[in-house]
């Protein structure tokens, strides 16, 4: 569905943030992008969102290649691929009502239908009450805001949701509930989850891609990688994770 072939990106000539990265997002197969700071995962996400163009390599969406200049194509692409960001406090416009925040994709992508009804369905899908529509972001907690952000991401019924550390800024008890929400949603769409937290990725994603310093060092089924990590970086990563006492 979404393929990156030999994609590289550098903000300047000397600095390559991503080096020859190839990956495939297949329908219905949730995939986790794991990396620490400096791994290039944020850049990878921005490439997949069509916010920046690769310096080399190709990104294909279905049959077509991702052309950020083609507005008709981008309309279709944006309808199909939506993001959820990390910081619930900066990803919602504080001066907009929830109904307008969630409804923005419907407006900008010119999606037909009763906007209020569609927003209501999205709110229901994320477990928020309908009266949230008339309220403002500051009236909600971090976890609830993240639900609003997720509602915005799914309102246009996208094929892929790209979550960028979407639970990292949440408390543990909230985190688990949002992870459960993602799990439910991933039944109807394909989830691409970027995170440094292997535990979260392991709970959500069938497949995993491990990034180190702009390169893919390991990829495959989550279960397999966790059982037998092949690359030394993966091994180090797994060994570093603090575990619960038995």
């Amino acid at each position, binding site marked *: 569905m979404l393929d990156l072939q030999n994609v590289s990106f550098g903000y300047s000539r000397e600095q390559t943030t991503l080096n020859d990265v190839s990956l495939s997002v297949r329908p219905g197969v949730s995939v986790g992008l794991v990396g620490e700071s400096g791994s290039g995962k944020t850049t990878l996400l921005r490439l997949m969102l069509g916010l920046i163009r690769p310096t080399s390599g190709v990104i294909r969406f279905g049959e077509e290649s991702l052309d950020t200049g083609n507005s008709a194509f981008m309309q279709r692409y944006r309808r199909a691929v939506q*993001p959820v960001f990390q910081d619930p406090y900066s990803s919602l*416009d504080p001066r907009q009502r929830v109904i307008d925040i969630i409804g923005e994709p419907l407006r900008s992508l010119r999606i037909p239908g009763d906007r209020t009804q569609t927003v209501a369905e999205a709110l229901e899908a994320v477990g928020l009450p309908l009266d949230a529509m008339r309220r403002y972001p500051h009236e909600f907690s971090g976890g609830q805001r993240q639900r609003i952000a997720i509602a915005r991401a799914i309102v246009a019924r996208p094929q892929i949701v790209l979550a960028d550390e979407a639970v990292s800024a949440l408390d543990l008890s909230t985190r688990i509930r949002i992870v459960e929400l993602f799990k439910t949603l991933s039944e109807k769409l394909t989830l691409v989850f970027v995170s440094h937290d292997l535990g979260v990725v392991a709970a959500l994603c069938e497949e995993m891609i491990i990034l180190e310093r702009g390169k893919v060092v390991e990829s495959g089924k989550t279960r397999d990688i966790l059982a037998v990590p092949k690359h030394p970086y993966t091994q180090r990563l797994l060994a570093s994770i603090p575990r619960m006492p038995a």
Partner: protein
Amino acid sequence: MSPVETSVSRREQRHSLALTLGLALVGINLLVALLTLFWTPYDPLNASGGRLEAPSLLHWLGTDRLGRDLLTQLMIGARTALLVGTGAVAIGATVGVSLGVLAAFATRLADDVMAATLDILIAFPTLLLAMLVVAASDSASLWTAILALGLAISAIVARLTRILAKRVLRQDYIVASRTSGTSWAGVVFRHVLPNIWPTLSVNFALQFGLAVIAEASLSYLGLGAPPPNASWGRLLQEAQGTVYTAPIGAIAPGIALVALVIGMNLLADGLRDIGDPTRGRSR
């Protein structure tokens, strides 16, 4: 009530008092200004009484050195002040915000050039700049002054807008808006402008007051609009010689000037809170 709570509610009380007072002061000015479009007590241009008459039932504020009714002149002065304030801020806001938003989007080099240019413009004292413009133009008309002041204001507004817009553009909700398919124009109108409005509106109100004072200064120096456009500044200048014998001639326009500017400043806070959804409590 605990100390923290009482100070919050007291602050809210002060706020609404300030807002009411501000509205009252500016409102009075506005009403008077509008009234002069249809009616004034006397003819502003010609004498209607003796020279420098003291306040009486016929002439509530007395007459000036040419026998013209002072109240009439004062009322028209209100119209001039509001016209200048509104006009200058309107020009300054339109030009300034547009430039500022463009600058916020500009590439590093263009942005640096623009910022430097603005800084140079701002370094010029507003009054001096206005005087230069008025002197450079052939006619000293009200519109020249408004234009000059508007340009001076636009530089300040542009710089403020640029900084505020840049801060907003760094937020995730801007990226979210783009990935929702919104165009950059849509992002500016739907997200950037509403979020910079609170700070900008306060600034506009303050600039209004400064513009009114600047115009009064220009008129005082004889560079302002000629009659029939009476200006409080000109009234002050004319009353200079007779300030001891007929003090009302200086006191009245002085008070009017102060009242309008203070009223606008008081209104400034109120403007910011209007339409601010987070004015209540945030979680």
